[in-house]
């Protein structure tokens, strides 16, 4: 049977798989999305904290950058392996490494964004009697937004890709389809998993791009000084 199957033509996609396994595909896609959102969300919160420290204490920037770069170099498979003894084959085990990988790009961009606010704009904010909190929320954060959005796009796209690896610990969304296909030498789930993963990345990237444009109308207007 196996031999027969191996010799039979194995098309890239068997369309009936879609219908038969639709529930599987749907839940995998949803899980993929969830893992991505959790990972990037957690990464964003952690990055905000690390960036705040780096911006407040200049000397902290280099160690923080070193730390996030170090995290980024750890192979994902190894990182999942390290966490399994502590958190089991849980979603947390999958999300933590994914979040850790986003830190490098997010911290770098948040810090760059805040540093890009010109000194005269800061001075103007101070001179008009803005409190520090108000200055951050109403002036610096909006002005750093294009940088933060750019960082977020890279973080999301790369996370969607790495989520598939989490399939080895039983998570991984579309990665499970890919792994299933690999194990069975069956092209269809592999193709579907990969293509959907790519489409998800593109869709999320477009979504963030759109939200970013909506948030920063001032950055969209061409410089057309009269």
């Amino acid at each position, binding site marked *: 049977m196996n031999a027969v199957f191996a010799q039979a033509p194995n098309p890239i996609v068997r369309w009936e798989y879609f219908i038969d396994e639709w529930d599987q595909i749907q839940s995998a896609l949803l899980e993929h999305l969830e893992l991505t959102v959790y990972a990037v969300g957690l990464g964003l919160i952690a990055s905000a904290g690390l960036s705040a420290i780096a911006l407040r204490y200049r000397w902290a920037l280099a160690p923080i950058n070193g730390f996030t770069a170090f995290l980024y170099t750890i192979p994902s498979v190894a990182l999942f392996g390290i966490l399994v003894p502590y958190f089991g084959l849980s979603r947390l085990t999958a999300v933590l490494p994914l979040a850790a990988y986003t830190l490098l790009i997010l911290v770098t961009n948040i810090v760059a964004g805040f540093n890009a606010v*010109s000194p*005269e*704009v800061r*001075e*103007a*904010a*101070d*001179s*008009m*009697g*803005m*409190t520090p909190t*108000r200055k951050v929320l109403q*002036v610096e954060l*909006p*002005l750093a*937004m294009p940088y933060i959005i750019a960082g977020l796009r890279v973080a999301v796209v790369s996370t969607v890709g790495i989520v598939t690896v989490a399939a080895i610990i039983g998570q991984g969304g579309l990665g499970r389809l890919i792994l299933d296909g690999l194990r069975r030498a069956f092209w269809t789930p592999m193709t579907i998993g990969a293509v959907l993963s790519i489409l998800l990345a593109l869709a999320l990237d477009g979504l963030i791009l759109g939200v970013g444009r909506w948030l*920063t109308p*001032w*950055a969209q*207007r061409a*410089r*057309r*000084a*009269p």
Partner: protein
Amino acid sequence: MASIFTREKGRRRRRVEPSPCLHVFCSCLADDRFRDIAYDVGARLPSLDRTKGTTIGAIAIKLQDVSKQFEGAATPAVTSLDLDIEEGSIVVLIGPSGCGKTTTLRMINRLIEPTSGRIDINGEDVTQRPVAELRREIGYVIQQVGLFPHQTIAANIATVPKMLGWEKQRISDRIEELANLVGLEPSLLDRYPDELSGGQQQRVGVARALAADPPVLLMDEPFGAVDPIVRIRLQDELLELQARVGKTIVLVTHDIDEALKIADRIALLNVGGILEQYSPPDELLAEPANRFVEEFVGEDRSVKRLQLRTVADLPFNRGPVVAATDGAAAARNIMEEYATEWIGVTSDDVFLGWVHADDVQDNVSLESVPRSVPAAQVQPGSTLRNAMQIIMTSHTSTAVIEDEGRFGGIVTLELIRASLEAEPGQ
């Protein structure tokens, strides 16, 4: 919208009458007499009654023995500075780089805290007030403007009123009023700062600083980044604006001509924030306190003084002028009297132009003879420097033409020279 714009244009085109304080300061032509008088600390602050000629205004900002020593700096940035700034006046801080003029300005709104000394605004020590609250009552304009690029012009202007919790309607009314005041086209209000020219941005900066109607306005080289033509226009507009809003303005510049043009009083600082002289512009030029002041204001200080005064300050007289109806004989008599070959012809007191002796003929009406075109003439508002230039480049006399072409008199080099010798304050 169009009508507002037109009105705006019209307003701007109108000649700016320099505020009276700019040219009432008369002082003696110091020349050599004061050149070698030793610098005397007691003479550093001339008595206040010279500022406005008659009244002594209330002191809005008072700096007492203010010093600033930056950490790690070998010498202090500002040394024991005393300065009384009168309410409603424009005081210009000027001096070479490193003279602490910007530091001084920034100590007033506590962007820099003084090392010692005391700064009062309307009798209240600035350090006793919450810094954010204090700054909302002090307008601040900087050279780079520092508009918020992510906010529309309207939102930029609304910054302080919003913080003060004004109602929406009041804010939008105020924005409209300010746009009008600083000469901003209302259609620009929805734009972002990057879409405006440098001059327009600077106007927005001023409007934003004035938004909550602060009694005090601090300006740090506000016109330093715009081109010379726009700079002159913005200076004129500032004077015009000041005539209407009457703020207490402290302005930092490195441009002595700008200082002379707009200041009621100039505080000339030396390196280390040492006050060398604090005087009205004309006095600074006429009676420099020491050699440093003399060198700073430049060799041509007598010529510069001419820019501070206008023809209206001169006791100009009638000169060789004849009414057209008086006829050729009268014209010849007057020319003889003044020993000149040119005579001004008026009709119903309106100046027609200059006529040469050769063209004065008994059988031709004085109204129809050829006249020198363009006729040499100045307005009462022209600076003496302008008048001098016209006098020196024309072969006729120079007429002063008042409103509606009325003939006011003749201005001569002798009159101009004599005015520079007048005592200060007269």
